[in-house]
């Protein structure tokens, strides 16, 4: 699954593109959760996907800005954060392949919302013929 000499979590995993079991792109690794147990090495436990966790990495001002925009759009404040266990990782390469169905992830809600409310109203977006 990975190179014998190991995986560099910042270089190889953090911010890497993700695709689901159908090869569909589902976002990036916005954060990586590690489990700390006394007397044991840190275990890479969960991949977090979603704008909320990325905003936290940028700073509190981004969290507030994001909340304000969501409120302006009359949407609930969180489009959803997906927590995918690291055991679902199939391949770590240029893209990280996950053994999940991307359509079921909470973080896909924003994409679906944009598709329904904005992209879907653009002429030609449904793939109809000219």
């Amino acid at each position: 699954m990975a190179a014998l000499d190991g995986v560099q979590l910042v270089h190889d995993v953090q911010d890497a593109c993700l695709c689901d079991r159908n090869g569909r792109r589902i976002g990036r690794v916005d954060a990586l959760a590690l489990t700390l147990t006394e007397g044991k090495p840190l275990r890479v436990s969960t991949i977090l996907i979603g704008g909320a966790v990325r905003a936290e990495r940028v700073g509190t001002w981004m969290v507030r800005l994001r909340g304000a925009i969501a409120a302006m759009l009359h949407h609930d404040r969180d489009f959803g954060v997906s927590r995918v266990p690291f055991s679902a990782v199939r391949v770590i390469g240029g893209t990280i392949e996950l053994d999940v169905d991307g359509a079921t992830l909470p973080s896909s809600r924003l994409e679906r919302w944009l598709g329904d409310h904005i992209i879907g109203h653009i002429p030609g977006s449904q793939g109809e013929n000219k």
Partner: protein
Amino acid sequence: MSRELLLSHLIGRQVRDADGRKIGRIEELLARIELHEHGNDYVVVEFHVGAYGLMEALTGGVFAQKLVQRMGSVVGYRRFRIPWEWMDLSDPLHPRLNHTRVELETRAES
């Protein structure tokens, strides 16, 4: 007891040795597969800690860090590979080695 912390909360943290002396900042975590009866896990086996010498005050941003790393020995940049057993993360916001800087440098040279 286990608890969760985010990788982004560790990266950039200043690491001190057992005597309280600065070692550098956490730049990278190296993980390897550990096999279990019920599958496998990726576990962190090594912390890479970079020290920028006299340029420390200028290396707050990622761009500045990359630039200084490229300039290498000119600006006194050093990178230590620290085994997980040497790192005390009982307070993850203030990581600390359970060895001294001298022991770390001896290990790095050997």
